[in-house]
């Protein structure tokens, strides 16, 4: 369970202050797929960063499994992300000069998974995105869709309970994007993992259990979500 409690994030100081997130609250039950939608610049990515502890909003709480991650020490948040979360970005962020294996094994190294278990996990993750035969191939030689699938393999290799995807299909054509979406939903379903997708795409949003629409840093509307105690959902 992820509980977001009255998160407020301001960029800049004094006259230049810009309210990127304004008192946002909602709960995400375990295993749910949820889409964060909204216009460009509305604050979707900022919200995702706050939910994952990458960013620390000045007001509010992000309670995951009963623990407010915003008050944890940096080391603890890092360890938390390494063991429980993962990310997929619009522009892949894979290492083109490294092999698929070396790309995918990174989260296992960060989480200090023992060496003996790594190979099997990497192979399973690559097989799950149908890149099993590319394990020794340099990432630079993959197509765009394959690169994003590689990014998904890297994201799921350590079996995170929460998966964040920021515009995962933004750089892909609709067919390739559809394949990538299927892998994401598949992972969420088989592993009962929470999937949080930031997207412009109404079709993709429609495939999710719930939707949150952000306008100017505020929740404009929700679909499929229960109201929270803070009662800030419009």
């Amino acid at each position: 369970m992820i509980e977001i409690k009255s998160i407020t994030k301001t960029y800049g100081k004094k006259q230049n202050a810009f309210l990127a997130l304004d008192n946002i609250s909602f709960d995400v039950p375990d295993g749910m797929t949820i889409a964060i939608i909204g216009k460009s610049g509305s604050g979707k990515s900022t919200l995702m960063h706050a939910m994952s502890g990458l960013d620390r909003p000045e007001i509010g709480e992000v309670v995951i499994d009963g623990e407010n991650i915003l008050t944890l020490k940096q080391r603890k948040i890092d360890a938390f992300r390494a063991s429980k979360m993962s990310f997929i970005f619009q522009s892949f962020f894979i290492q083109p000069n490294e092999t698929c294996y070396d790309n995918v094994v990174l989260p296992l190294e960060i989480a200090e998974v023992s060496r003996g278990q790594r190979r099997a996990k990497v192979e399973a993750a690559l097989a799950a995105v149908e890149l099993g035969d590319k394990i020794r191939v340099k990432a630079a030689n993959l197509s765009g869709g394959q690169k994003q699938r590689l990014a998904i393999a890297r994201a799921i290799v350590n079996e995170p309970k929460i998966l964040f995807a920021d515009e995962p299909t933004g750089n892909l054509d609709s067919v390739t994007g559809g394949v990538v979406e299927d892998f994401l939903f598949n992972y969420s379903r088989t592993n009962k993992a929470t999937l949080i997708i930031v997207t412009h795409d109404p079709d993709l949003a429609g495939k999710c259990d719930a939707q949150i629409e952000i306008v100017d840093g505020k929740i404009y509307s929700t679909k499929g979500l229960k109201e929270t105690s803070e009662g800030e959902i419009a």
Partner: protein
Amino acid sequence: MKISDTIRRAGRSLRQAKARTLLTSLAIGVGAFTITLSLAGGQGGRDYTDAIVKANTDVNELLVTKKAPQANAIQEYAPNTGGTSTGPLGRSVATISNADIADIQKIDGVESVTPNYEPSVNYITTEGQKKYVATLATYSPSVALEYAAGSVSGELGDNEIILTQDYAAVLGFANAADAVGKTVVINATKLSTSFEKVPQTKDYTFVVKAVSSKSGLAFRSQSSMLISINEAKNIYTYVNEGTSAYGQFLLTSVHVKDASKASDIKSVLASKGYDAQTAADVLGTVNTFINVLLGILLGFGALAVLTSVFGIINTQYISVLERTQQIGLMKALGMSARDVGRLFKYEAAWVGFLGGVIGSGFAFIVGTLANPLITKALNLGDISLLKFAPTQVAIVIVGLILISVGAGILPARKASRLDPIEALRTE
């Protein structure tokens, strides 16, 4: 992240920027090259001088001179304590008399005192051969000699002589072995012969006991022929008796019972007005010279390393900038700031390691190739002037790794402080 994984990732990042890694390493390699070569030269040089001193001096022996009077001080006249003879440039030089020798003999720990007889003779010859100018020196069993033929164990007998290879050849012997057992004649002139008479000369006959070979180390054996101290004293007495210089020695050697007491006896001698030089002193003087030379070379090496430090800082900064996204991603995936910093420090360490290995490896190759040439050019026999000690090379490499890590600290800090959100925004 485990250290071993961090080190492997660091190595892989470097492999992906091969040209840059190599160039940065080469800069530090120049320093490693210079330092390794100068250390090898220092080691070889010290070993070489050590060997020279061992071959030419005796650790139980002190070379004693009398302290020269102060340049401007007026000396009290002392009729019995030796005199002053006029040395080079007309400066007076104190000499050691027989009374001084008796005095030194009384010092505790002194075994024997032998004045430096080394008499001047006219020539050496053998039957049916021409006469050749010769110098004589005294034989000491504790000074190492290399022999071309024959050998001497223990003391050299009176009437026995050790020839050099050159003299053996010039005196008409077929080879060094042929000379052993043959007789040679040495002729000396009595100096005190009054001038109305014909100069008095005398022949001394010696049996050749051995022929010393040319050696890169033993300088004495190359020019002087060696006779026993007794025989040297005989000739000295014949040549100098009746002259004013008779019984006045510039130099005397003091043989001590225990080599470890040599420096104690040296200070006793100093308090009595003598200058004494131990074998260690001789070695020390030569080694000071070598150390100064070594210091200069090391200075150049250090300068090269300093320059390469800025090279490392520069390339590591560029590397951090280039890999902003990668750093952001690793941090988003939960890599701690400390581990990100480490990744870059280990990269710097790899550069230092590579530079050290390239530089000292190259120095080793160059040194190994140059050694025979140097030995030939300086006529050192079987001596190698560049000696590579594995521990020294290891210390150089480890030192360079540490220096490189030091240079990598600032860029690594920049990397570890990068905000992952900012880093991932850069497209």
